[in-house]
């Protein structure tokens, strides 16, 4: 479904990704593991079209999408739930969710999708008319995920969904992510809690200093010595 071939990308003169190749098949759950600053977020932002690769190729459903911008990728069905929630703080939760369905393919069915999504997030339903900026961090993360679902994406990408949340909230967020993962959506996820993520993922890539150094089945990575030492602290 998604394929990156020899992608280089970065900000301004600074190249962060060096020759990154990875692929995600339809229905698969794939995770990218790496230290802070290894380039995980950069990878997701590059796929989402927020950054344009300086070299290499990205294809989605067989079509070249290397140079597409962010909104064009959304139109194709690629949605990123960004790190740090990134809600529209001075809009109501309902408006935030409706913005999620801005994509043409989702706009026509937005009422229906809203019902489906609210089924998944009963807590969000209670907050529909509040300003998003007034919610707690955990609630905001739930809204951010719900907003991502509103686009009815073909590929859903999570960037650090548990970052900056209290441990109790983290487990709730994981519960939601797990439910989405099991629902059959194709998922690419970056998450600092490597141990948990590797248990729900099918496959994983290890990113170090902007390069893929390891790729394997999630179970194999859990048993891999290097991964255990560097990322599981074992």
């Amino acid at each position, binding site marked *: 479904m998604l394929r990156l071939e020899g992608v280089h990308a970065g900000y301004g003169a600074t190249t962060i990704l060096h020759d990154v190749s990875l692929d995600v098949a339809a229905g698969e759950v794939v995770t990218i593991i790496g230290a*802070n*600053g290894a380039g995980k977020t950069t990878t997701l932002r590059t796929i989402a079209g927020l950054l344009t690769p300086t070299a290499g190729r990205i294809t989605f459903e067989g079509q070249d999408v290397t140079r597409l911008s962010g909104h064009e990728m959304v139109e194709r069905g690629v949605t990123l739930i960004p790190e740090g929630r990134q809600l529209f703080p001075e809009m109501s939760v309902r408006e935030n969710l409706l913005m999620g369905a801005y994509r043409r393919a989702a706009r026509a069915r937005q009422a229906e999708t809203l019902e489906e999504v609210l089924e998944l997030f009963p807590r969000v339903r209670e907050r529909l008319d509040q300003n998003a900026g007034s919610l707690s961090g955990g609630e905001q993360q739930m809204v951010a995920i719900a907003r991502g679902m509103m686009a009815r994406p073909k590929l859903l990408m999570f960037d650090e969904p548990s970052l900056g949340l209290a*441990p109790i909230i983290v487990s709730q967020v994981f519960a939601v992510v797990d439910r989405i993962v099991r629902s059959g959506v194709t998922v690419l996820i970056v998450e600092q809690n490597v*141990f948990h993520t590797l248990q729900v993922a099918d496959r994983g890539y290890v990113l170090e200093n902007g390069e893929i150094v390891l790729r394997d089945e999630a179970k194999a990575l859990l048993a891999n010595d290097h991964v255990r030492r*560097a990322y*599981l602290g*074992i």
Partner: protein
Amino acid sequence: MSTASPTTTVPRAAPAGAPALPRWQAAGLALVLAALVAVPIAVDNAFVYHVFITICVFAALSTAWNIVGGFTGQLSLGHGIFYGIGAYAGVILAGLGITPWLGMFAGAALAVIVAVAISYPCFRLRGPFFSLATIAFLEVFRVLALHFREVTGGATGLMIPLKLGWEWMVFRERPPQLAIAFGLLLATLAVAWFVRWRRLGYYLVATRERESAAQAAGVDTVRVRLVAVSVSGGLTAIVGTFHAMYLTYIEPAAMFSLTLSIQIAMFALIGGIGTVFGPLLGAVLLVPITELARGWLGAKALGLHGLVYGLVLMLVVLFMPNGLMGLVARLGRRPASRGAQAAPAVPAAAAARPAVGAEILRVEGLQKHFGGLHVTNDVGFTLREGEILGLIGPNGAGKTTVFNMISGFLRADSGRVSVRAPDGTWHQPVSPADFAGLGVGRTFQIVQPFAAMTVEENIMVGAFHRHADVREARAVARETAHRMGLGPWLDVEARGLTIGGFKRLEVARVMAMQPRVLLLDEVMAGINQTDVRRAIDLMLSIRDSGVSIIAIEHVMQAVMSLSDRVIVLNSGRIIAEGRPQEVVRDPVVVEAYLGKEFVHAQA
């Protein structure tokens, strides 16, 4: 020190005070300056003299503007205020029988007072709002000049008293006027050069690039800006006095003019904003357009030169934002070699670890609320000389907030932070500059390089804290850079570094301050395993040189092997404190921060 990477072993020339211009650029500059005098004398035509005098005047005004607008980045569109003050002071005093040679200094003194008075409140404003405020002040001065007609002559304006000769700065013939204009230009350029390449200049640019990082390096950013605006305003007034005597007639709309103020800024931008000689270049190229349009086409072409100005300005902004000087610099630059930025840091020879000494920093009962959120709740701890204190806790626990409060960047709602000075007395510093003065240095979690300065200049900003002399600061900066493994990148602009490079630069800058207490905010985040090992050695060597350290860190390997003591913060409270081995076994800490998996791994 023998393990330094090969590039660093090449002996370097002794550091110079100011960077020498490349020979061809120096020759070009001399040529331009010589032409400003030689051409009018050779042609000997009144109009040509007029054009060249005007070039000198505007180049001087623009150079003076650039000290604030370029070096400091405060984009004033109200410099007409100072020009007008100089003009009116000169003419009014001349009317009272006082020579403009004294009048210009009276004008300058008044301009300095006005500059400080209007700039001090305006420095809180950023970008366009600062510009708008300067425009508003300009309008106020224009209206005041119209209103107080007993002094200024109001809308009818003032004629200069017709007393000829050097004493009155008024001449029938042109050459003496050119001599004065050229002299003023040279003086202004000299001042700008001096300001730029002394400590003040580095401080100004650092303040422009990252105000908070400059403050952390001990720069009193308000003070240096006020000095800059005073110098700039004073020079502008002096040139204004001469120009008034040259024009022989002044009135409020022409003196306190927005168009003139914009032109002054525009020449600097087109020539190369923030460079010493850019404004000169801009004026040399653009002033003739105005004067020729005025002289040859007369009223028919009213607006033509302004249209050209506007278009040139837009094109320059779009296609060469660094101006003509940017172009000149690009011509002369050799392509920089870009290798991997991984020269190993060189820890100083490990001395025996000195014993942990007396308390140097004391924090008591810090409270901080943001809105309804209690981000810091009764935090208190002490740091001893030569000790490393680890500060850990989940994201959002308030670690960085605590750092901000113990370095002067944030005022606590209540509580005290005390630092012991080298003479043994205790102080309660308030501003970042106070903290820096007592030897507290910090890094920022989100790196804050001075992007447009080279690595060497970045570190020099720190070194200036203890070495006012540019040569000394440069020597200290180089030494620090080599020690931090940044030696090969001394002349690279900071924006070109990798994340790891930024992190090192951040530490290098604060180390160059030779701090007594070092606050490190996640300096190991995002660097690889080998570099973590090196960074740990480096920090130990820093500690062994007698520096006390507080480190916020997520890399537990580093926390465990570095810290003498660890404090765990959660939701703004200290939930545990003690030796690292004890803290990681504390069930409360495991629950809040480490997670069960960590404990299994340790066991």
